């Protein structure tokens, strides 16, 4: 199972310093939640792990990241992104059927056989706890699903390419409480087979699903500890203030 080891990571976009000397380790089979106000660098941190920041023209970074035993930048970038899947804030179904959405990444990585495609789509939908709701609607347009179903569809699409790590970037920010609960359920069950990093604006969500919680502020890692400890006896005053909703 894969782990990340991040040392002194700094990231700049043009003149804006998004991350300042962040060091932390991500363990296998844990859910690490990252909380913090907007512009605290948490999404930038997440997008470092699958090298999505590189799409930004003026991006610069310093520091070292290891995935397992390898340097992050020594791994082939497409392969890395296959191993480190990502689910975005807004559900992003492509304008195809439910089936084709899930099969999308699998096909892209070269799978053509109908039978194994069928199997992988079903497995991914089951893992995302969506199979029961959509098994009779695989041919329908993905846009016909509800918001929560669309987000779980996106999770299934990520799972279908068989990643080892899943990055969630505020996955429930556009969902109602019931859909949120279902997505959280899915995350908790995925933990046994995947390493999960969850960026969230919802402090309570971090408390519900995270094994450990990291608090980012102004591009710095303020505190990282077991979730229970963070929410009962945080070591830093700022963490306490943020969790209690005094700012952010």
């Amino acid at each position, binding site marked *: 199972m894969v782990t990340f080891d991040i040392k002194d990571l700094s990231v700049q976009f043009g003149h804006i310093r998004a991350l300042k000397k962040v060091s932390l380790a991500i363990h296998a089979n844990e859910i690490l939640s990252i909380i913090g106000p907007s512009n605290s660098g948490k999404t930038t941190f997440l997008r470092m792990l*699958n090298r*999505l920041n590189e*799409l930004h*023209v003026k991006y610069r970074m310093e520091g070292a990241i290891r995935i397992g035993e390898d340097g992050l930048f020594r791994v082939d970038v*497409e*392969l*890395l*992104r*296959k191993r480190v*899947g*990502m689910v*975005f804030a*807004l559900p*992003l179904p*492509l*304008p195809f059927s439910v089936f084709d959405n899930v099969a*999308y*990444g699998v096909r*892209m*990585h070269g799978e053509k056989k109908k039978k194994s495609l069928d199997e992988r789509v079903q497995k991914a939908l089951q893992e995302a706890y969506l199979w029961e709701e959509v098994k009779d609607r695989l041919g329908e347009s993905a846009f016909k699903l509800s918001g929560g179903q669309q987000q779980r569809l996106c999770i299934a*699409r*990520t799972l279908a*390419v068989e990643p080892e790590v899943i990055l969630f970037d505020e996955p429930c920010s556009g969902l109602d409480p019931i859909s949120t609960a279902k997505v959280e359920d899915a995350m908790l069950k995925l933990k046994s087979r995947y390493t999960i990093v969850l960026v969230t604006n919802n402090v309570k969500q971090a408390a519900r699903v995270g094994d450990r919680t990291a608090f980012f502020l102004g591009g710095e890692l303020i505190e990282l500890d077991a979730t229970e400890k963070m929410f009962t006896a945080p070591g830093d005053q700022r963490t306490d203030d943020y969790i209690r909703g005094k700012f952010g």
Partner: protein
Amino acid sequence: MRKFKEFIIEKLILACGVASIFFVVLIFLFLVKEGLAVFRSVSFSHFMFGHKWYPISEPPHLGILPLILGSILVTIGAAVISVPIGVGCAVYIAEIAPLRVKEILKAGIELLAAIPSVVLGFVGMVTLVPLVKNIFHLPTGLTALSGSVMLAFMAMPTIVSIAEDALYSVPKNYKEGAFALGATHWQTIWRVMLPAASSGIVAAVMLGIGRVIGETMAVMMITGNAAILPKSILVPVRTLTATVAAEMGEAVVGSEHYFALFAIGIVLFVISFMINVTADLFLHRRP
């Protein structure tokens, strides 16, 4: 006093708005009135599908099929050349080119659009026409192919700039989503960007073709202007537009020939109109 000023300005603007429509309607009515007169002497099917265009023989033969086919042939040729290159160029500018190259290319495309068509025709006449003649060992290089190549240059700026806009306006999320699944840059372009921008790209192609169909000067100079049924792309052809431009000055006002040229105008109008409507439908089909 202020109210009065407001009133005057409002009415002036209204007049401007109405004027443009008014003139279009006038032109259209005039075109229809003069054009339909030709059907007093020739039947509709004979006009549209007649093989012979001898407007000043006695009696005149007024079949415009060779002209329609000439226009279609040149246009299809131009589309075959300009669409792949134009769309490819748009993809390069929108997705691949570094910032500086992008600026240079965009300026270049705008420059291409600024070349007057008579200059393009002239340049084509002295460079492309002899080239076509020598490559294919033809008696003359004034052929549909030469016209297609030159017109492809005219369609390109339209296709590139509108297709690039369409690609640019694809939501950034789509691209990131594809990358996050481990897609290569090319897979992202081919399987996400192009399908997502498809309606805009189709519109770009239609507008480019619209420009080709309506073009007169360059085609008149380099297609050879022979009103015969074209059997290949390597023979001289005459387009609808070139016919009107070349013969209007000589046609006796009120003659069958004169009316026939107006009828050609109607045909061109209908074709352009249909192309623009199609383009519009695709442009506004955004789901």
